[in-house]
């Protein structure tokens, strides 16, 4: 049986350290965040220049299963958070994550979609897929009058190379 690259290339688990998205000029160290009391994902601080984070209950990037990375779309002081331009990623764009073990996992975007938060497709996004995959999550759907974000944008990517 021929395995797809995201299965065949998968590495042993090792915590992520740094994220690069060349197409967006994003370079960010990765915080480790968990779940809140209410079971939702905790997020990085809202300060200007706040880095992205890895949800520490998800797979480590490059190992089997979906690794979940979170980043703000904006900051307390301006419109640009680390994932401000996530919507611009298109299939084929590459995303790299370096890990504590020195390895780098390179992923290729295959899907970029926005979902209403109230109807977030939990199973679609977090399903324990057999291969090594990445989910980049930020906010979307800003409602100016209410000063809130009604949507989540999710970028789906698969492991294509390990360095």
């Amino acid at each position, binding site marked *: 049986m021929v395995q797809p690259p995201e299965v065949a290339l998968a590495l042993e688990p090792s915590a992520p350290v740094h994220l690069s998205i060349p197409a967006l000029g994003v370079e960010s160290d990765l915080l480790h965040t968990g*779940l809140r009391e*209410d*079971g*939702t*994902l905790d*997020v990085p601080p*809202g300060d200007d220049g706040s880095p992205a984070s890895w*949800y520490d*209950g998800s797979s480590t990037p490059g190992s*089997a*299963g979906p690794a*979940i990375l*979170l*980043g*703000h*779309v*904006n*900051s*307390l002081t301006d419109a640009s*958070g680390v*994932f401000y331009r996530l919507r611009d990623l298109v299939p084929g764009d590459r995303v790299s994550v370096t890990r504590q073990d020195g390895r780098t996992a390179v992923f290729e975007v295959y899907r970029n979609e926005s*979902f209403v*938060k109230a109807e*977030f497709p*939990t*199973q679609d996004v*977090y*399903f*324990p*897929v*057999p291969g090594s995959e990445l989910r980049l*999550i*930020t*906010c*979307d759907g*800003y409602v100016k009058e209410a*000063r*809130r*974000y009604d949507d*989540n944008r*999710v970028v789906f990517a698969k492991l294509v190379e390990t360095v």
Partner: protein
Amino acid sequence: MTKRLFPKLRILRIDPLRVRPGLGEMPLEASLMNKKILLFSPALALGLVALSAGPAMADHASGSYGTSLDAINNSGASGEVWVEVDGTMATVTLNASGLAETFNGSPYPHVQHIHVGAQGTCPDMSADTNGDGIISTTEGAPFYGGIGTTLSLGDAGKGPETGVDLTVAPSGSTTQYKETFELNQETQDALEAGTAVVVVHGLDPATQPEAGTSSPSDLVPELPLAATSPALCGSLDVMPAGGAATGVTTAETTGGSDMGMLALGGVLAAAAVGGGALLVRRSATAGR
């Protein structure tokens, strides 16, 4: 809750065996003790309320759970499972591949369960206590526990009673299972406690040591040991609820969470008072 509850009761020198059978029927000669518990431990009072209010807590496992399934007994299989719980209803999606394909010329039936009530882990070869080279279902039980739910097909019962019914099990080397059903209390409790483990059974005897064919199954003695021994195992993890608050908004950053804490504190205080009233009332009734 019970794990935290009983040690505290022991400290208070109440015989835990007397208290254990459903706190609704607490031994009432101990009513004075109960009042002491109330006075000294609001947290304990909360615990008692939680246990006695069974039906109101029935949907406490609501949420999503998932895990990859890893091969045990060198089955060479792999899989994934997702359990979506809404109230007391569960939708279970289980994909498996690389399982044993045929048994006596027919598609190989693979009974599959959510095991509950033990450590919530999958066994390694150290579980093979009789040293025959195969982890039997029984030998794995100290790790994953007994059957809480049978992941049977269609309308077949979903409790332990259909646990070894091969006629309602998915079959063949690749299975794609999806069923929605009412989840029993034991399984809901295990999901919440993080002790629910999915196990898929049925090994190809050709890939197993001699005992797989020559020894009888520990579950169905008419079958060989390999037929019912575990092939896949995965401990269910809670998945994040919905999306993420990845937009910074003023509402979120101007003390919103402090307000939340205050509100929660108020609810807890009210619950403690309510629990106290309930216990005192019980004690009074029982004293008659």
